[in-house]
């Protein structure tokens, strides 16, 4: 069970104007609501006790505003297991049954919104895509390393977004067809070439895993470089634009910072070959005879 902010139950003061009848009704309703709530908590505890199988999670907790949580700590949660249960399912269960203040980002539950990258048993993973049964207990769930913690498992994403947006992350071309119904042609091979790079869901697992990014705050990082790769390799943009993109990428904190440790590639939940993309851009830059740092 979680050790939460101690509850201080105080009598609610009722307004002087409220009629005695209303007070009585309100009190009755309140009683019912409390009864339902207590029953729920008892049932949750019973479920956890009687389940054939429970999983033990140790979850990082921190809240700058709550005195008991200003000093980071780990809370223990024992969650009843169901086939197919993921780390995200377990966190949601713990929040809904034990401690409603347990805080984490999540939305789609299917590895496409990129909200729930976490540090689970020492590596960056999406909570929704990680089966409990694949992990050893107790399962340590922490916020992504190398980012400021806002609260519990929520980290500040601003720096990541800034890097993503610094590489002109939008399609640019000077050769659009005239007609509003005319398509630009693209070969199947070229579409295939950029396909993996377009799968990025901006979860920032790669950035969090990267030692270089940890030491150099200005380093573009694997995700932003991959975003630039997606456009640089797209034949529809044309050669001039590619040149421009390579110039952005080989700035001081660009591709040449990468030391090919493959940590980003290892943690990417969409299996994007990030390190390879970075290496390819380095080769392109050399081919284009650009000066590099």
């Amino acid at each position: 069970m979680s050790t939460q902010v101690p509850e201080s139950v105080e009598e609610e003061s009722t307004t002087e104007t409220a009629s005695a009848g209303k007070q009585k009704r309100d009190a009755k309703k309140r009683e019912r609501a409390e009864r339902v709530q207590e029953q729920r908590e008892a049932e949750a505890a019973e479920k956890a006790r009687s389940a054939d199988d429970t999983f033990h999670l140790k979850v990082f907790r921190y809240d700058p505003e709550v005195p008991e949580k200003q000093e980071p700590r780990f809370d223990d949660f024992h969650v009843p297991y169901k086939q197919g249960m993921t780390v995200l399912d377990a966190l949601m269960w713990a929040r809904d049954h034990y401690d409603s203040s347990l805080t984490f980002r999540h939305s789609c539950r299917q590895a496409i919104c990129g909200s729930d990258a976490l540090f689970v048993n020492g590596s960056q993973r999406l909570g929704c895509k990680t089966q409990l049964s694949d992990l050893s207990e107790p399962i340590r769930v922490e916020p992504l390393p190398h980012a400021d913690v806002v609260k519990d498992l929520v980290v500040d994403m601003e720096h990541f977004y800034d890097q993503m947006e610094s590489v002109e992350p939008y399609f640019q071309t000077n050769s659009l067809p005239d007609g509003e119904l005319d398509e630009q042609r693209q070969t199947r091979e070229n579409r295939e070439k950029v396909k993996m790079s377009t799968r990025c869901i901006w979860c920032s697992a790669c950035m969090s895993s990267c030692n270089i990014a940890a030491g150099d705050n200005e380093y573009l990082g694997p995700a932003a470089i991959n975003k630039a790769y997606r456009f640089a390799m797209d034949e529809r943009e044309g050669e001039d634009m590619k040149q421009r993109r390579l110039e952005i990428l080989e700035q001081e904190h660009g591709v040449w910072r990468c030391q090919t440790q493959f940590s980003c590639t290892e943690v990417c939940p969409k299996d994007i070959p990030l390190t390879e993309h970075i290496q390819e851009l380095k080769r392109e830059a050399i081919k284009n005879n650009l000066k590099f740092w």
Partner: protein
Amino acid sequence: MYEHDVIVVGAGGAGLRAAIAAHEEGADVAIVSKLHPVRSHTGAAEGGINAALREGDSWEDHAYDTMKGSDYLADAPAAETLCKDSPKETIKLEHWGMAFSRDDDGRVSQRPFGGLSFPRTTYAGAETGHQLLHTMYEQLVKRGIKVYDEWHVTRLAVSDEEKPEDRNCHGIVAYDVQTGQVEGFRARNGVILATGGLGQVYDHTTNAVANTGDGVAMAYRAGAPMEDMEFIQFHPTTLPSTGVLITEGVRGEGGILYNEDGERFMFEYGYANNLGELASRDVVSRAELTEVNEGRGIEDEYVHLDMRHLGEERIIDRLENIVHLSEDFEGVNPLEAPMPVKPGQHYAMGGIETDENGETCISGLYAAGECACASVHGGNRLGGNALPELIVFGKRAGHHAAGKDMEEAEITTGKVGDYELGEVDSPVELGEAGIGEDAVADGGTAADAGASASGADLVQRAVEDERETIDTLLEREDGIQQAEIRERVQKSMTRNVNVFREESALKDALRDIREARELYQDVFVGDKSRTFNTDLLQTLETRNILDIAEAITLGALARNEFRGAHWRKEYQERRDEEWLKHTMLSWNDGRPELWYKPVILEGENKTYEPKIRSY
């Protein structure tokens, strides 16, 4: 107080397109969204974008398919607008660099989809929504459009004239999730709601956790009617433990459904003797649940979808994503074992009543995308028609709100012209529990600001109301928490207002919702922190779930027929003589008021005469 010309609420496909369109027209536009744009659920769309792009196809054929698919409950001017605008909007995405799949000649690929007379579903692998969302966000970044992300919009600032048709929307109130601040956003020209789906009304849905129908509920409480809320699409192949969607493409490629006894029930029990697994979504969903109800389900819950016979090579080539989804979310490798599947809530055909320019009956208030009902989908949405709706109507709403001259809409909004009042036999009181006694989490009109109040005053007043509501929720030390209330409603909706609907169960649902409303009066937020308080956020969302659950159930109880996705045990036929009309629900002094308006079947060049919907 923040101030912009146009404020867009929500940052999925419709919201992003609306913001770009308003910006194109020179408006100062901002997006306010409870998620960062790339987290929006548009990203989960798999199938594609229907657009008549090729020789041999025409917008007229697309419109015919859409009207027929809707079971004649779509309004022809809206459906025709969708089909006419979709080709150039789809190509616009290509010009913005979207990574569509390509044919050998380098043009964008199209494929066949259910209910279409031409293979016009334009796609990017099985991840069309993801590609669309990111392409559009790139365009937003390019234009430097301001986004207030992780700001949850809680209410609209709308004037309080008696008739909604006389009201004006002046802005919104939003809660900054990161800091807990409540702030007003004044919109000089208009507010566009693009808040997406409402699947969280059910406990088993393909929708994201964020899809709580916020925009629909907010607009409803401000006076804009909800339309055709009973029409909910249930997708037949979702994973039992999470509701994750397994695309129709699996059956399209030859996947087979089996019951516990290993029978291919679609044929063996005569559910669809011609099309079998490829019958329309509602038919397959009902067949699966019948198998389970009659004791032939697996673990009394689901059936099996088997694609092993397709061979690994073909599966990896065309359905790779499905292998990952099944392994990651169900722990089943579909190359080695059949996938467990059951029907899950997927899409809301109904929503905020709008015309084909996205405008509601309240001046300055617009809606686009899944939260809106123009109506394009009527009683049933065709696969591949949701994404074009986002870009076509998102753009129109953005242009209109920014002041662009547009053709006058043919669809009327609000209680004008030919409408009739309806009645429904509810076993319990409806609407707000204990009106006036408790203002907690009420939303909508900022009353009492006075007739002479300016737009800014109205917004300020709404901000103060919201601050009071939130303070009250945070100050309470005990009571009941939202998780319990939400779970009760979700379970009841799945049990009683699902694929099969019958009177007694619908009434049970209304009772459960009533009880939940009463419990909600004593809701309290356990987390007292102002920093990233998702407990508070969910508590505010749960209020929206209550209003929407009630609307869906009421509409379902009132509609005594079987049309599109709406099946009634007692009424097994479509009844055109009585029911060629939209179910409308207005929030009238805290209670839902039911009324109807006729469907428009007259198109530009033809009238869509109702026919039997068979494929």
